[in-house]
């Protein structure tokens, strides 16, 4: 039997792919037990970008997911250690202390949220239509304060000394979504991003490191969220040039590396924020992405490989930026659909009036 030709976006297949992942991830993902929240984000965001969230999950499931996300929230009830509040990536550390008394009696001192999980949790809640009313905002803002380093970068949680640009981006999205920037020293954060910009115009994970598509996105999106994209970037023309040169057919993340589905988002979204998405070759990119699309749904990293939720979601975001019909529009710097974000914004306005 001849396989169908791979010349169209398989919308229905992608929907069932994300549904499958959401209910039972393949065993191989056991390695990701600490980042279930982030995997959940990719599945929910995937359904959202397909405009299929309401048809794919029932009202009861939606409520169940919201409750699961909130069950991962770490608050001062659970820990007194500065920087630990927010959301953890899943229940992998077991039941949380049931009360402050229980907390003080228990010997475990490593209960902590992480900033990537906190970012993913807030994004999941927004996609699921929650109003964030059960989020302990002051505790998260206090965590941000505790986790920013004197160089301006952010640590993921208090039990590490390592800061990098990915985590700084998470801190910026969290501040934006909570509409409270008091946890971030913004001039410090901008300086840190500037130190990460390389001689080639791209941005690395930390000062002195090789420019990379993912971290270039993090730097540019953080500056955009802080409202200083024009002044904050050391050399905007160089960043744009670096991004444009990452296209072979699809996009790759570093000079002299192979094209990989996800960089159509990281680099493409960066160009979009720099008002330069029109400079890329849409046809070449589309051709590449259709070669990583799988008949069973989802996208893989490279042609011929197995799909995963991460590449499946980012493959779709590229089609969104290429204005594919039937795919929801996204806000590049937030990695959320315009529709979900607008609804969230209306809900939070409603609260304050």
């Amino acid at each position: 039997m001849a396989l169908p030709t791979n010349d169209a976006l398989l919308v229905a297949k992608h929907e069932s792919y994300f549904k499958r992942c959401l209910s039972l991830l393949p065993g191989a993902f056991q390695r990701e037990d600490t980042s279930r929240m982030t995997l959940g984000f990719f599945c929910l965001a995937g359904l959202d970008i397909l405009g299929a969230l309401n048809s794919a999950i029932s009202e009861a499931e939606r409520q169940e997911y919201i409750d699961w996300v909130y069950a991962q929230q770490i608050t001062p009830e659970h820990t007194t250690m500065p920087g630990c509040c927010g959301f953890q990536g899943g229940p992998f550390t077991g039941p949380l202390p049931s009360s402050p008394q229980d907390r003080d009696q228990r010997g475990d001192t490593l209960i902590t949220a992480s900033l990537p999980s906190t970012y993913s949790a807030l994004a999941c809640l927004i996609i699921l239509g929650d109003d964030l009313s059960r989020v302990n905002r002051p505790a998260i803002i206090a965590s941000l304060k505790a986790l920013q380093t004197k160089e301006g970068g952010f640590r993921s949680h208090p039990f590490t000394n390592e800061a990098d640009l990915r985590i700084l981006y998470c801190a910026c999205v969290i501040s934006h979504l909570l509409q409270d920037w008091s946890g971030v020293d913004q001039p410090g954060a901008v300086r840190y991003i500037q130190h990460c910009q390389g001689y080639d115009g791209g941005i690395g994970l930390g000062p002195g490191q090789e420019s990379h598509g993912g971290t270039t996105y993090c730097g540019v999106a953080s500056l955009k969220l802080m409202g200083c994209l024009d002044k904050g970037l050391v050399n905007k023309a160089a960043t744009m040039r670096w991004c444009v040169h990452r296209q072979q057919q699809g996009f790759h993340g570093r000079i002299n590396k192979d094209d990989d589905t996800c960089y159509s988002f990281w680099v493409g979204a960066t160009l979009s924020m720099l008002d330069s998405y029109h400079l890329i070759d849409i046809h070449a990119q589309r051709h590449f992405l259709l070669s990583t699309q799988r008949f069973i749904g989802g996208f893989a990293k490279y042609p011929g490989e197995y799909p995963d939720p991460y590449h499946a979601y980012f493959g779709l975001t590229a089609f969104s930026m290429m204005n594919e019909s039937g795919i929801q529009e996204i806000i590049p710097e937030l990695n959320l659909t315009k529709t979900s974000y607008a609804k969230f914004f209306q809900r939070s306005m409603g609260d304050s009036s």
Partner: protein
Amino acid sequence: MLPIIDAEAMGYFRAIMRSNEKSARALELTEEIIWLNPGHYTAWAYRLDILKALKLDLHQELEFLNEFALCNPKTYQLWHHRREIITLLGDPQGEFEFLESVFKEDGKNFHAWAYRQWLLVAFDLWNGELEFIEKILEVDVRNNSVWNQRFFVVTRASTIALDQPTLARELEFAWSKILLAPGNESSWVYYRGLLEQFGTTDEWLAVEAQLKNATKEDNITPEDNGELLKEPQPSLTGSRFYWEMLVDVHTYKIQHTDKVIAVLNGTITTPDLTKQSRDEVQRLCAHLEELDPVRKAYWTYRTDQLSVT
């Protein structure tokens, strides 16, 4: 949401963390967890606590990390943990050998390169680094991580200034690698990066001369290096980067007319210089639109930018 099969080991680990047990069996358990889930940051943090509390032999820990790195070279926590151990030991002996084994598997592992940069700074190990870099570039001149490392070493991570002899040496080095593989973006980007950050008008004009003179003897097809370069290389004038560099030179001239005229002792007027360079950029970008069709819109954009500046 997203049920993931839990392991028995995870249950034991929680129990041990709860009782805050720091023991040999607790250490073994963290190892189990980390093998199951390399990104389990709590297990890594707990492991470090145990090592410190029991004052265990950290060299043995390095042996474990060596083995772990072979299977999970891209785990962030692994590299963070290694820094902590080396900091506690206060001695980086053996670390370069370890990194060689990692680079043998993947010469572009950015965790390993970041770690190497940390070692250089923390233990003042700059001597010999350029030789190390050259050795790797001889095997793979397209490895951009190595070029980045070279920039890091040459500038000592400073963006302020570079002494003239060093700048000249580095431009020359990059140029020799460009001639070896004209289609290699890494060496071109390094070349331009140096010029943009540290180059004076003299250097920019010298580059223009170098580019133009090179085409006179443009038979340097790197046929001998076919295997080394892993892909067929264009000739110098067949490389888009050659033409792009010329666009940059002329753009520089348009943006720095006063300086250029001073160097040329006033032998050209501002309007003439500007017009000449604009015409050149237009011609070069038109050529690039043909040579590099994926970036056609970008080359048009670069031409259009001229009327803005």
